[in-house]
């Protein structure tokens, strides 16, 4: 019985965004990374080849994090005390991209200074040739104070600056445009809020090939189903031709999963949770893979073993012959 396989055809497609600039293009990156460009749903190779594979970013910090799980601090060892060493270790672990998260305060408890932020970014750029994303702490005034000098000091690198939210995006978008960088927007797990913010940042004149969007996710067990379905809906809308949903999607399963008690904590938990390390890595890995399959173009992870496992999975998802 011949079976005719139904194929979807779509009028819209996801924007193509290139992160990082090489020396030839005015930056200092050893290579660039391109995401997006999809013309159909993730990994449906029999309809259209995947334009670009999903990429894995590793999150590092400008200083030793105060609230990270001991499992993470242990695996990165002394590297967590120095962003440049951490960047190196992350590149060795196989990351495609680095995310440098700036802390709210320095180790002394005072707010992070613009000088410290610029120094950390420059140290990371010097240590690793990977394209870089720089995320400010998430408090409007401080974010602007830190990101503007960072953007100016790294002009032309095509960094991704984040995070643009509805209450604070103007300064970040303006400095990204003035200095040849990209932006990442974030909205709380809602299709319409994501579209709205996209309209607002585009109104400022930033071109679509410089925008990533983070629709936000929850970890496995903590609301992943909301993030998962919002991403599926955004990707379907993008393919149906809705221009305000066509930015490549970035999500942070690492940060979310490692906030969950199941990953963070090893003591005083039920025996039915099993081995702590393996559970934590599984928590991060499954959160990330589920989101990649729902449309994530960039997943930001924290543990090198999760990174390895997500890489194996994404290689397998990409290695399908178009004949199947």
């Amino acid at each position: 019985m011949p079976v005719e396989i139904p194929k979807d055809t779509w009028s819209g497609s996801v924007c193509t965004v290139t992160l990082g600039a090489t020396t030839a293009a005015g930056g200092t990156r050893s290579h660039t990374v391109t995401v997006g460009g999809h013309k159909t749903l993730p990994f449906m190779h029999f309809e259209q080849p995947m334009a670009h594979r999903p990429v894995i970013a590793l999150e590092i910090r400008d200083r030793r994090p105060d609230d990270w799980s001991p499992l993470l601090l242990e695996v990165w060892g002394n590297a967590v005390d120095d962003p440049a060493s951490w960047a190196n270790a992350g590149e060795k672990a196989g990351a495609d991209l680095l995310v440098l998260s700036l802390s709210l305060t320095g180790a002394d408890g005072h707010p992070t200074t613009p000088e410290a932020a610029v120094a950390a970014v420059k140290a990371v750029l010097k240590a690793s040739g990977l394209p870089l994303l720089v995320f400010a702490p998430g408090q409007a005034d401080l974010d602007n104070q830190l990101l503007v000098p960072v953007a100016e000091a790294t002009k032309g690198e095509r960094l991704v600056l984040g995070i643009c939210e509805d209450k604070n995006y103007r300064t970040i978008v303006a400095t990204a445009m003035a200095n040849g960088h990209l932006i990442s927007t974030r909205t709380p797990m809602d299709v319409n809020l994501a579209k709205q913010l996209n309209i607002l940042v585009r109104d400022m004149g930033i071109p679509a090939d410089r925008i990533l969007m983070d629709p936000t996710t929850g970890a496995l067990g903590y609301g992943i189903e909301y993030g998962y379905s919002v991403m599926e809906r955004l990707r379907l809308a993008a393919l149906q031709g809705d221009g305000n949903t066509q930015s490549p999607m970035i999500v942070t399963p690492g940060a979310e999963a490692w906030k969950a008690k199941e990953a963070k904590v090893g003591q005083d938990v039920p025996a039915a949770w099993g081995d702590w390390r393996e559970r934590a890595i599984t928590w991060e890995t499954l959160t990330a893979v589920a989101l990649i399959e729902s449309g994530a173009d960039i997943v930001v992870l924290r543990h090198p073993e999760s990174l390895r496992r997500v890489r194996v999975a994404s290689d397998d998802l990409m290695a399908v012959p178009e004949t199947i």
Partner: protein
Amino acid sequence: MALTGIQIYKLLPKTNCKDCGLPTCLAFAMKLAAKQMELSACPHVNSDAKSQLADAAEPPVRLVTLKADGHEVKSGNETVLFRHEKTFFNKPGLFIRVQDDEAADGIRAKVSAADTYTVRYVGMDLTLDGFAVQSASSDPARFADAVSAVRAISKRPLILIARDPAIMATGLRAIDGESPLIYCADAGNWQAMADLAKQHRTALAVCSDKLDELADLTGKLKTKGVADLVLDPATRRLGTSLIRQTQIRRLALKKDFRPLGYPIIAFPCDASDPTQESVLAAQAIAKYAGFIVLNHFAPEMIYPLLVLRENIFTDPQKPIQVQPGLYEINDPKPGDPVLVTTNFSITYFSVANEVEGAGLPAWLLIVDAEGMSVLTAWAAGKFDAERIAKAVKETGVARKVARKRIVLPGHVAVLSGELEEELPDWEIRVGPREAVDLPVFMKQAL
């Protein structure tokens, strides 16, 4: 695919005899389309129309149920490709596989541990569904022994795996009278397997790496009288499985293609890299498998998979919520603090479990935030000072405490000013952002 009222009407006698109790055949057709009446209410409909209507009433993905001793695994009856379109209905069964060439002690230990495994998640006790016993030795007696050994320990539903009908027959005899799922029929053995399936009234899995052949086989098996079929498209890798299972679901739902309108069985147990077993299983949960066979029993792998299955199969139209109100944790006294959060059930259980687990007494005030988590509810304007103040008044918590202290989640520290205005005689404190940090906060800061 469901017929419209007009399509049904064309199959009815069109005599308006009123014997069904309705004034016209068209009215009756409309009731049938809305599934508010049964066709049997019409005494005059002819057998040809009956069979056409019965076929049309079949769900696009057939429901296959495995039962054993009160346990039940239902798979199929799905109606959408994406959970946001409606919901996914029947959670895939998770089965642990044992092979008959494993040592008997090992089989017993694995099955005992997996059979009694239970883990609590947002107030629910989650368990595995059953076991798969695979013939690896090619020895019929060993297969039967392994089946008996598993059945002696666990009463849960079973899947028997053997390609040789003679070996399968000995396995089935070992649990005579039961109806497991048997795996599998293929192009070579399907007639003998169909006989076994009919004899023991079992569901039968069908395997082929070609969709054409798979559809051929299900057609032949259906003609032979085996109705409960399960599909194995024989993909064992992540990428090919995603595509095949999507294609099968699409054919069933969008093309009403009956030969592939059956649940799918997936085998993460065959992962060549053991760290990918959980990844394959996670994909199978989200992307359309009905039965999932695992090799390892390890709580640190099973717990995340059981949680993922709950998450993916949550009805998106109904966020899981708890009743707003005042909850007493660890028998609180008037001097103990009031902790406030939203009625999203994951939020509630995260907070309640932390406080309860730490043995700290507290009044937990759950605000009606329409089932959203703290940040989402705050962003949507469903968790603000006004709503919190309303919950304080409605629950009468002020009369239960001597010291009026209320702790806000750290994520909504920004609400503290407004809340001071709403509740002038209360002390407003800002707690940690995450529930996991509550015990330390309560011990050190309260």
